[in-house]
């Protein structure tokens, strides 16, 4: 059977959203999240990828996911 990717995608989504809220000042605006190039979350994801020198795709690729799991300082990366 194909792996039940639905569950992990959901978890990854929550993980990245929490990360962007904590360190990039992302404010969830209520809309259910859909990958659109211009929406707030994608913009914040690009900001994060740019800060860490990752490929700025705006997508939750493996490099980004890997970085989001790492231990870090609790202070934001962008001025609040």
């Amino acid at each position, binding site marked *: 059977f194909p792996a039940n990717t639905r569950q992990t995608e959901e978890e990854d989504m929550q993980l990245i959203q929490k990360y962007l809220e904590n360190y990039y000042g992302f404010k969830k605006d209520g809309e259910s999240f859909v990958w659109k190039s211009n929406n707030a979350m994608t913009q914040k994801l690009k900001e994060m990828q740019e*800060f860490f020198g990752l490929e700025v795709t705006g997508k939750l690729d493996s490099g980004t996911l890997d970085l989001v799991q*790492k*231990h*870090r*300082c*609790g*202070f934001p*990366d962008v*001025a609040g």
Partner: protein
Amino acid sequence: FSTFAGEPKWTKQVLTYRIVNYTPDLRPADVNAAIKKALSVWSNVTPLRFIKKDRGDADIMISFAARGHNDFTPFDGPGGSLAHAFAPGKDLGGDAHFDEDETWTKSPEGTNLFYVAAHEFGHSLGLFHSKDPNALMYPVYRKFDPSVLLLHQDDITGIQYLYGSSPSTNNDQRESTEIKDPTESKDPALPNSCSSSLTFDAVTTFRGEIMFFKDKHIWRKHPAVRTTDFELISSFWPQLPPGVDAAYEIPQKDEMVIFKGNEFWIVRGDAILPGYPQKLYTLGFSKDVTKIDAAFHNGIEEKTYYFIADKFWSYDERSRSMDRKSSLIRDTFPGINGKIDAVFQHENFLYFFMGRKQFEFDSDKKRVTRFLKTNFWFPC
């Protein structure tokens, strides 16, 4: 590197820190050592100096806590966010919080406290996160390698942008001449801070500390700290001659004025302001005044008092005028009779030094309240 918006930084060079509580993961002595070493990472490359306090308030309050801990930024359990710190400022400003849900270690395994603390104190001093993956101020924790220099050039450039560099040569001198307590030194040429016959050339406050001048040395004492630092005057101000006559601080201007013979210098931090020394008469003294014995500045009256033999003059900073004639010391400061060596103001008291004696004078009650030894302020 980057700084916080508005570039908040400490305006003083001597900062206090206090470890409010301890993690059970390490012995308290190991926590003390890790914190002290993490602060020295920054004091080694700037003029900043850190003094540990064991009680009361301090500029940098250090604590361990889990989850919510009254600063609107709760921790997130094991992993994830390890610690955070706040930009320079009052109250929460400068404070550093460590997540108790981590396993704090003093080895490369687990979460190394020294390494994380050094990063957090970068924030406490005004640095934001760096994009340079080799910099200490990079936000992601990397396995601690004790063989690698902790500060990257990016960190040094950032912190020196805010505070300037350490007076490196003096710092070396300071290292070589900084003796915690001269009573331990075997060199007879060094004055003994606990001798009952100790006298001083001059005494003044200085950025929250008290400075005791003697020949070519100074003792530095923070009122809230037991120990004193003993240093060469030249390790701060190489151009200043030894054996000064008097010194006083104008905190509002962050200036200290130092006198020797008929000349005086004005310093700010470890820099002598340009155009000094100048002659005494430029302050308004008659030309026959060739030296002064002692001086202090009263910040409330905005007046500076200059003592010569058994008399004194006062200079009014507001009207920018010197007394036309002198007054007898004992008339204004009853109980202080004769020539004084040094004087300084601490809280609401004046401390007059005359030979081996020190008189505490209450400025409100206008009388001497205590007779003290000259080494009263030292841990003898």
